């Protein structure tokens, strides 16, 4: 187990190192590494400013962003699937991504605020607002029943999707929908050091909460009564986990849009190797998610260069066949 985590962690470092050398601009391996070691203060290289920017301001933050978002989506998916006892659960189950889309589209189309920061902010506020509505609709006397939460989440997601369509049809010029569809499809193109700067601590805190709950999550897998019998405060832990995953998802979706299928597929795939024990599953799924999204995003920005695909399109193209394969084999662990 420790060996697997070490191997994956090594794989993650290698993936970051390799992915940053690939891109539409034709830069040599040496140039890329001179830039990175130069910024880390290890060498003092003389790389032209624009080439330096390509590596340090565009590629590296994006690769790191892909790692963070992939890790976050996979972790949230694994937790949601257990907490709601629903193998189809994914990080977006609670209407969070639909709320974020509505918030982002409102900013983009109605021109509330300006620039990338406003869009991120709009997405974040929309995500939190949608989750608040879900909790208000589903929770009674501070008890969250998974079925009710999921149903409320689906309903709120539908409402937000309808409102998003309404805003687009009502206010957007047909020519202006490019940036909207790109964002809605999920893209890591806007990740920069600023986004990494505020998202990383939040995500790290979220991961810490989830990892600390690994034992409780194992108990959940046996059902509520069993969990209670094992000494888990079911209501409190469920609240904690749902709120944590919703907040994590809000952070993820506001920096990258809704990237589909990573959070749904990877936990299932990883369980095949680790089994259902969350103390093993969670560290592995976090690393696997990071590596997976780094490479899918590398494909999205290079396959058709200098055109770019939204990464969410590729994760779905890869994710759906993988999911069908999993279904056909029958997943004994869910």
């Amino acid at each position, binding site marked *: 187990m420790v060996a697997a985590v070490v191997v994956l962690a090594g794989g993650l470092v290698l993936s970051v190192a390799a992915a940053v050398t690939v891109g539409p601009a034709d830069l040599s391996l040496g140039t890329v590494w001179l830039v990175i070691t130069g910024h880390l203060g290890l060498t003092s290289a003389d790389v032209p400013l624009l080439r330096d920017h390509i590596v340090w301001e565009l590629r590296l933050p994006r690769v790191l962003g892909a790692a963070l978002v992939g890790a976050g989506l996979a972790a949230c998916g694994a937790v949601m699937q257990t907490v709601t006892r629903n193998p189809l659960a994914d990080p977006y189950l609670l209407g969070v991504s639909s709320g974020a889309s509505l918030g982002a589209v409102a900013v983009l189309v109605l021109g509330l605020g300006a620039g*990338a920061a406003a869009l991120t902010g709009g997405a974040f506020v929309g995500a939190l607002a949608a989750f608040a509505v879900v909790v208000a609709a589903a929770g009674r006397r501070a008890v969250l029943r998974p079925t009710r939460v999921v149903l409320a989440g689906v309903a709120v997601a539908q409402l937000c999707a309808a409102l998003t369509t309404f805003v687009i049809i009502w206010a957007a010029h047909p020519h202006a929908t490019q940036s909207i569809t790109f964002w809605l499809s999920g893209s890591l193109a806007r990740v920069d050091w600023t986004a990494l700067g505020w998202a990383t601590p939040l995500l790290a805190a979220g991961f810490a909460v989830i990892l600390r709950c690994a034992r409780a999550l194992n108990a959940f897998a046996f059902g509520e009564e069993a969990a209670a019998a094992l000494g888990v405060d079911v209501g409190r832990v469920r609240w904690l986990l749902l709120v944590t995953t919703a907040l994590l998802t809000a952070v993820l979706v506001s920096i990258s849009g809704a990237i589909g299928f990573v959070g749904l597929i990877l936990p299932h795939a990883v369980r095949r190797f680790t089994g259902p024990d969350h103390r093993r599953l969670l560290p592995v799924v976090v690393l696997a998610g990071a590596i997976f999204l780094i490479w899918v995003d590398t494909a999205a920005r290079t396959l058709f260069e200098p055109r770019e695909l939204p990464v969410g399109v590729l994760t779905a193209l890869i994710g759906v066949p993988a999911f069908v394969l999993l279904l056909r084999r029958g997943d004994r662990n869910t």
Partner: protein
Amino acid sequence: MRFLTSWRVAAPLSVVLALVGGCAASGDSEPAATASAAGPVAFTNCGTSVTVPSPPARAVTMNQSATEIMLALGLEDRMAGTAYLDDEVLPEYAAAYAKVPVLAEEYPSKEKLLELAPDFVYGSFSSAFGDEGAGDRADWQKLGVGTYISAAGCPKETRPAKLAIDDVFAEIREIAAIFGVADRAETLIAGQKQRIVDVSAGAKGTGVLWWDNGTDAPSAGACCGSPAMIMSAAGVTNIFDDLTGNWADTNWETVVERNPDVIVLIDASWDTAAAKQAFLEKHPALKDLPAVKGKRYVTLPFSSTSAGVRNVLAVEALARGVGGVSS
């Protein structure tokens, strides 16, 4: 000679035309439809056969470019209605435009159009005949109503593989022929051609990024649509000439690598040039592009980039803007 005879007809036009010697060569391609003020005109438009029995008297234009081509040809008295402005109508046509009823802010519904009993419906994009607009062209043809879509706006299969300014001129000729005013088209086109010739010499070799909209993956002017047409007419080099289509989603890394000399900022209500400029100057990787540092921008209103009589304004602005900064 056609040039001299046409002047009499074109004189009432409010467009000021610089008719300098030699520009009459514009008549080198015949109008696709034969001009006749009386007889029917048959033509193929976007792969659809259309017959217009006699010059229309109650035409409806569904997009701004179509509206302005009609007004430039002095046909406002044949217009029963217009729709869908992207921008203010050009000042020289404002008085004529004021005489035409505006049917809707965007596309009028099919019902609204039928109520108006038009005899010709003219749009600049195929969406004008989509579900949100006038509906299927074949239905209108069955009612004896002629329809027309700009070549630049045809569905992909029937669109010119690479749009050229001559496609716009061909459209102007065809519309003029349908309305039996072929001479007016020649005067208009000759004037536009001369204006392009006057400005396009000094811009050769300047690398241009045409940024239409979008910040995550900038949508840039690609090889074959109206942005490419305008860049080519202005004599500049499109840095994304290798991308297929009219516009394409690209990425900032390639923009930095290709390092444009000048950046065209498309100004539209939904994505202003000012917002684009602010984005470029704040972006950690883009702020150091020489074009950004030197503020070498050319701002073009979106309305001047959809195929029509305004394209010449975009060509002039681009060529002058580029010439002014890359001496």
